[in-house]
């Protein structure tokens, strides 16, 4: 990966599953970019941290949710999963509650992310 950018694309995910379609449409953008060979980092902020909770189920009427998509991230070489640590704490959660290994970021570390990617998409 060439300096100074750790990866091409930062996708910021700020919504949980089920309540809205933002998480799914944000993940779709990330997967497409990865499929086209771009380096992709995901940053889960605010309510977005709940997207990673274990034991999610299908929604009403069989609405499929996003857990299955999240489990495919590694297959697409999306391995940089960044999580806003303060948001996890706000929900009373820890990294052990999440379905995938993540890197917890302090506020200072988050402020450095948008400048470290060539493109930032917020969902």
């Amino acid at each position: 990966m060439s300096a100074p950018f750790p990866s091409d694309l930062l996708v910021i995910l700020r919504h949980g599953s089920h309540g809205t379609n933002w998480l799914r449409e944000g993940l779709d953008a990330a997967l497409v970019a990865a499929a086209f060979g771009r380096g992709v980092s995901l940053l889960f902020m605010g309510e977005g941290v709940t997207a990673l909770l274990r034991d999610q189920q299908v929604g009403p009427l069989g609405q499929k949710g996003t857990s299955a998509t999240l489990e495919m991230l590694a297959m697409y070489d999306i391995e940089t999963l960044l999580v806003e640590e303060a948001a996890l704490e706000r929900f009373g959660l820890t990294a052990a509650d999440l379905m995938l290994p993540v890197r917890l970021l302090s506020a200072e570390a988050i402020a450095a992310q948008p400048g470290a990617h060539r493109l930032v998409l917020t969902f």
Partner: protein
Amino acid sequence: MLLHILNRSPATSRVYQQALVSMAPEDRLLLIEDGVQGALPQLVRYFDGLQGRLFALREDLVARGLEGRCEASVQVVDVDGFVALTEEAERTVSWY
């Protein structure tokens, strides 16, 4: 007695404040959709004063992996119980 229905999380939206201000002392509040996040121990404090009148929808908790994480003071009802709550209330007011 009215049933107020809230579908947004107090962690992201301030609409819960509007619901609280609009509730009479006997009114009930049901958390649905992303609103069920308000049943988590860290967030339930936003609903102080609603003891015995705060409900959360089971199906939305389950879908989000939150079913086992609710504060005990929140009464968990399924969608059949949601209908029952609307029967018992004179009318409903939705906050979104």
